[in-house]
């Protein structure tokens, strides 16, 4: 098995901040907007270095999305920053009309996605954002797995012309992908080769999937692990190629199983090669207060749950 080393746990939002800082130095068209959450989004360094290219909007996310759309008219590449909940559900119609339908080059950068924001509870723990955003025609949806990948994704989306939803989180998680990686939108990454079951994971669940594969290996089950950082457009080929070999699949995401990665994968499989699938995801529920680890455990979003799902699904082959 390939071994992945945690280079030191970091939060993915800091990866966004690092990527944005780099963009500030390299791309004069990049501008940033924030709705009163500079510290949470790790935008301080960009602002310090580019005060003229930063727009503090205040607590007015709808206005922020409209201003971002307007800034593209004149060639700017706006990156909006707020929590995932306020980046999507709160401003869905603004995104739909002024950004997605209008085809504007806005990068909607969303932190604190999922239950792992922890103690703030369900009002802030959006578990529906991937579904909301992937349903918008033309919207790219990216959920990177660690600090390094979030930094790489942040930089990559500046070079892509069109609306993007970039989702990341609050907790410190294993940082295991290469610091110098190139990031290709829509390209899944084969992290672990296996033959008995395919585990397709996104975001914080990728490290959990790697941990699960180790446990499964000890139990004599060979798991293939794929990092799907881009939920839309989905890398159909890497998934179909893998299930052709394994014949069973587990999808893993910190999101509702309605509307998430799992459903996108299920659609691709149904259209091409129907395959038994288990969904590691929240099951049509809101979150609650707790530590990230407690919540991951309670809602079945960790390596332990992925192991159990894998053992279950291979029985259905």
């Amino acid at each position, binding site marked *: 098995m390939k071994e992945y080393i945690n280079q030191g746990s970091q939060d993915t939002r800091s990866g966004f901040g690092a990527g944005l800082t780099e963009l500030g130095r390299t791309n004069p068209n990049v501008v940033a907007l924030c709705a009163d959450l500079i510290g949470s989004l790790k935008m301080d360094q960009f602002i310090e270095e580019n005060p003229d290219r930063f727009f503090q909007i205040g607590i007015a996310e709808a*206005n922020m999305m409209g201003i971002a759309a307007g800034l593209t008219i004149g060639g700017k590449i706006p990156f909006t920053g707020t929590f995932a909940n306020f980046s999507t559900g709160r401003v869905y119609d603004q995104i739909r009309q002024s950004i997605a339908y209008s085809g504007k080059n806005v990068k909607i950068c969303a932190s604190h996605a999922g239950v792992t924001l922890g103690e703030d509870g369900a009002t802030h723990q959006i578990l529906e954002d991937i579904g909301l955003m992937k349903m918008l025609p033309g919207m790219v949806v990216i959920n990177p797995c660690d600090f390094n990948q979030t930094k790489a994704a942040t930089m990559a989306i500046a070079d892509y012309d069109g609306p993007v939803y970039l989702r990341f989180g609050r907790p410190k998680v294993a940082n295991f992908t290469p610091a110098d990686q190139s990031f290709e939108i829509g390209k899944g990454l084969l992290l672990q080769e296996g033959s008995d079951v395919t585990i397709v994971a996104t975001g914080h669940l990728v490290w959990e999937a790697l941990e699960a594969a180790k446990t499964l290996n000890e139990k004599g089950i060979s798991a293939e692990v794929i990092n799907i950082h881009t939920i839309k457009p989905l890398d159909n080929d890497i998934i179909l190629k893998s299930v052709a070999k394994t014949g069973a699949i587990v999808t893993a995401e910190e999101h509702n199983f309605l509307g998430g990665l799992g459903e996108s994968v299920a659609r691709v499989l149904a259209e091409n090669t129907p395959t038994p699938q288990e969904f590691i995801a929240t099951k049509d529920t809101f979150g609650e207060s707790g530590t990230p680890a407690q919540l991951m455990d309670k809602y079945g979003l960790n390596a332990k749950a992925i192991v159990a799902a894998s053992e279950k699904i291979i029985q259905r082959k």
Partner: protein
Amino acid sequence: MSTTHSSQDIVTQVRRDILRMVHKVNSGHPGGSLGCAEFFVSLYNEIMELKEGFDMDGINEDVFFLSNGHISPVFYSVLARRGYFPVEELNTFRLIDSRLQGHPTTHEGLPGIRIASGSLGQGLSVAIGAAQAKKLNKDSHMVYALMGDGELQEGQNWEAIMYAAAKKVDNLIATVDLNGKQIDGSTDKVLPMGSVEGKFKAFGWEVLTVEEGNDLTAIGNALREAKSMSGNGKPICILLKTEMGNGVDFMMHTHAWHGKAPNDEQLESALAQNPETLGDY
């Protein structure tokens, strides 16, 4: 096309265009469109500094955003009459495969349109963003926006109004079509808004009120005055008191023609009141 007389000719032709467009497909919004015909003609033919052709970024020219997208007929007519696309294309309004969607959109690539609008309350924020982009680009041209008065009931406007004053977006002239009417009746009946002028002033805007919002001279003077006030640290609002359905007697003094097309007989009567000037499409 810069004299008041010829602008009046354009207005009359624009009215005919509006009426014929909505009549043909038996849908669309003639009332507000007719009420803003003079404003659009003044803006596009007398006020705005425009480049030849169209590009999305609008650098080194004035740009305009329509927030109350349902008055697309007047927007389309004025854009076509200004040369953005062939006037014959007005014939495709609201038809399948047309670039002239029910509400304006960039999606079909119609020259002159820079944002989709229709879902209300979003245009002012977009205009602010475009104005701030102009400042970053050191482009001294203006950004214009038009909103409906009923539309001010959408909360996003007030986020935008607060922001524009706080951030000194002084290269922006936002006009409110103060016709006092919305779908369910008068704005005073549906949701009284109190003093719109007082609200804008309290938020820190410069406010100009045009009592004769269907008078080309009055509109032109207000837009020129507004422009002269730009660059002084405050966004500028023009409150334009218009008559919905202006120029067609039976469409005036009522909200009934907000979203209703005339029948054959009504069209004939309406067109008779507005004889052809530049030539029908």
